[in-house]
């Protein structure tokens, strides 16, 4: 079997991730931050250490500004619903996922104005194209760091600098880049960063977070949920302290234990080294696929300008039949269709039929790439 659906969720997970989750359940099964007994404290320590390692991983000084969520969608909703009020303007890029577009379309019905800056047919955004939208003094600019459809990397720092000059906050959706590219919240110059744990950070589903930049004022951001935090229990109002202000309810401790092990696995190998490998294999795949008659590849032709996510179509074939044959005849697992990102497919010109997406991972081998190219060649001539 060849797993090429890492942009949906990474597989396989490193063994230490599985081990950390088992250890958590066996040895640290208390409710972190609620009770004072040893199992509760053991769980609390695992959560705190994870907060520190995530802060370090993303270049954040204050680990209290790592807010755990269930996934990137939850983190993006916290940021979007927490920042925007009726009458506010928001600017988005043309490659956004529905995790951003759906909360924005929801808020549009409640008085928020949404401006979309188009991307070109390769999914690329031109920072200069943001000028007219930024002239409307938006409260927020949301940018997808890399497309989940074709991997195109957005010039986040350039856009953020223009957005800040216009007085806007910047939220980056790093679902596809955290663990793939070196992602530093200060170099990106953003105020809020949403990530998921179960993709390239190699953790389990049900983990993710929103990072508040060290300079960001938390009073700008309302919590999405209120409830028990284990702190200031004598009061019925939500505490202002970080991270509790945004983290009500029992956290996914077992998942976060796995996520922390995933981060360690990445740090031991080095995100830059893994990135070099992924550039190499995605270049090999792109070159091989581009030789196939009738096959159209999307995204930038230079693999340095994209994550290891490739989308293609074949003339005269539906994406679903290609995906079916890949799975059934060759045990190659991919994702076909619109990838929850109609906006991105509009930009690429592949809406509504969609594309076949192959997304590689750190353990994808050269041999697997070659087998995949041969399989697609054969499917193209069926």
């Amino acid at each position, binding site marked *: 079997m060849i797993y090429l659906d890492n942009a949906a969720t990474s597989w396989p997970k490193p063994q230490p991730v599985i081990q950390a989750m088992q250890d958590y359940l066996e040895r640290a099964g208390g409710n*972190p*931050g*609620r*009770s*004072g*007994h040893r199992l*509760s*404290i053991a769980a*609390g*320590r695992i*959560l*705190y250490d994870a*907060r520190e390692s995530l802060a370090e991983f993303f270049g954040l000084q204050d*680990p*209290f500004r790592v807010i755990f969520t269930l996934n990137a969608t939850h983190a993006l909703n916290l940021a979007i619903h927490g920042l925007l009020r009726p009458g506010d303007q928001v600017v988005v890029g043309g490659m956004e996922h529905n995790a951003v577009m759906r909360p924005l379309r929801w808020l549009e019905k409640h008085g928020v104005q949404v401006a979309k800056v188009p991307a070109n047919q390769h999914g690329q955004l031109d920072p200069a194209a943001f000028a007219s939208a930024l002239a409307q003094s938006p409260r927020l600019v949301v940018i997808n760091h890399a497309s989940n459809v074709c991997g195109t990397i957005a010039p986040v720092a350039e856009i953020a600098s223009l957005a800040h000059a216009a007085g806007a906050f910047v939220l980056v959706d790093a679902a596809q880049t955290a663990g793939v590219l070196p992602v530093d919240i200060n170099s990106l110059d953003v105020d809020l960063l949403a990530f998921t744990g179960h993709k390239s950070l190699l953790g389990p589903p049900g983990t993710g977070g929103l990072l508040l930049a060290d300079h960001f004022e938390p009073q700008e951001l309302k919590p999405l949920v209120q409830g028990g*935090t*284990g*702190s*200031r*229990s*004598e009061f019925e109002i939500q*505490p202002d*302290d*970080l*991270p*509790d202000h945004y983290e009500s309810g029992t956290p996914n401790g077992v998942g976060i234990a796995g996520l922390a092990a995933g981060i360690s696995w990445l740090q031991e190998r080095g995100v830059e080294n893994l990135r070099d490998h992924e550039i190499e294999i995605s270049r090999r795949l792109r070159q091989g696929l581009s030789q196939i008659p009738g096959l159209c590849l999307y995204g930038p032709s230079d693999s340095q300008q994209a994550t290891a996510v490739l989308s293609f179509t074949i003339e005269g074939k539906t994406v679903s039949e290609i995906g079916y044959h890949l799975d059934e005849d060759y045990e190659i697992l991919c994702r076909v269709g619109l990838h929850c990102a109609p906006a991105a497919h509009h930009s690429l010109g592949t809406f509504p039929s969609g594309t076949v997406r192959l997304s590689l991972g750190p353990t994808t081998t050269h041999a697997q790439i070659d087998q995949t190219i041969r399989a697609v060649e054969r499917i193209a001539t069926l």
Partner: protein
Amino acid sequence: MIADPFFAAILFHTTTSALRSEKLLKKAGLEIKLVPTPRHLSSDCGIAIRCLWIERQIAQGILSSAGVEHEVHSLDEMI
């Protein structure tokens, strides 16, 4: 004359603060322990740090310079 208490309890607003402080104070070599927050000091649930009374000012210095909000109480009633 009443003798000084043997232990101090350091109280925090969040568990995250208590756990961060535990790491900071252990790194500084202080003899500390996480304990359930004494009920007579706070109605809050969660954990506090117990340290030697004579080392409380060192602990306070470390926590203040790290920007961790905390309160120090004597813990003679607990032991």
